[in-house]
């Protein structure tokens, strides 16, 4: 649910990084925060437990080039991945415009990936949204580890909804795939909001 303020000439979008615990959602935001130029980012806020597990959310506002004189801000949020924090995840999803589903590629985490994706769909429905229409992408993270499932299998497992969505292989700690993921979901959110003009070929 974007917010357009014609007086302040600002457009705000909310993008939520969702996925099972320890999949690398916070690592995505930390890398973005570390690497973006100062003018394109705000302060990163992390509400975490003492051992750095996300308790409520991480928050990072970012922006690229504006649109027709309007500043476009993308507010990036993560959710806590552990199953028992579902109330909190639901609160963070409020007003979401786009989702990055961060999956853990390791064989022994695939069950959690599937459960988290199902949980995302359930929670979105409470806001009248669903994955068939909401802009979203999938990031298969931790591709550098030895015990990971092949990409085809992950796609079969997690990207078999009504539409096939863009996906990215990533090593979020090192930044591989992080900006491709962010830029693609940002683009999808913009197209959903404003539409895309057909190019005229001469």
């Amino acid at each position: 649910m974007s917010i357009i303020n014609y007086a302040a000439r600002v457009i705000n979008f909310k993008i939520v990084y969702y996925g099972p615990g320890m999949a690398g959602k916070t690592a995505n935001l930390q890398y973005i925060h570390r690497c973006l130029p100062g003018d394109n980012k705000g302060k990163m806020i992390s509400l975490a437990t003492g051992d750095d597990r996300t308790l409520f959310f991480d928050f990072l506002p970012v922006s690229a080039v504006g649109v027709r004189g309007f500043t476009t801000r993308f507010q990036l949020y993560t959710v806590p991945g552990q199953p028992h924090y579902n109330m909190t995840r639901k609160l963070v999803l409020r007003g979401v415009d786009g989702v990055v589903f961060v999956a853990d590629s390791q064989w022994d985490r695939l069950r959690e990936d599937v459960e988290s994706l199902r949980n995302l769909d359930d929670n979105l429905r409470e806001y009248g949204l669903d994955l068939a229409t909401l802009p979203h992408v999938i990031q298969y993270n931790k591709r550098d580890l030895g015990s990971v499932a092949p990409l085809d299998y992950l796609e079969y497992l997690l990207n078999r909804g009504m539409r096939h969505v863009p996906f990215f292989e990533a090593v979020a700690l090192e930044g591989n795939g992080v900006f491709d993921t962010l830029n693609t979901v940002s683009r999808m959110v913009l197209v959903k909001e404003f539409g895309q003009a057909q190019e005229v070929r001469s």
Partner: protein
Amino acid sequence: MRLHDIVIHESDAARIDAILRRFLSDSNSSAALLIDRGGQPLAEAGTARTLDVGSVGALAAAAFSATAALAQLLGESEFSVLFHEGVKESMHVSTVDEQTILLAIFDDRTTIGMVRLFAREACASIGAVLEETRKRPKLVGVLATPLTAEETRRASDHRPA
């Protein structure tokens, strides 16, 4: 619960700004911030202009949402007011409507009772303005035509330094 888009046109912004300034003057609060419950700031007045409103909005909305969820666990629809008392500055958050909240920051030049009283009035007035904004078209003026592929690419091109 299906949420409405929030669009604030220039005339609505001026009315909201006037209500917030009146609230500051009546209640003697130092700052007022109108926030969408998803965490996005909509308008601000007073010393709120010097705050990191993005961070304040995200945290205040989260605190208010968590409190509302707590209320539901206790069988209430929500706690309509949230109050944090500090040594110098205090914060009062109250419900405007289903989608927005009003945050006031004040110090010992006023009292919680005064802030609560005038916040209630301000929330009702802002709620009425927001109700009108929902009937207005969302994309007008320069935003009325679809973006070109190049505009979309540039606006979504986040790059490491």
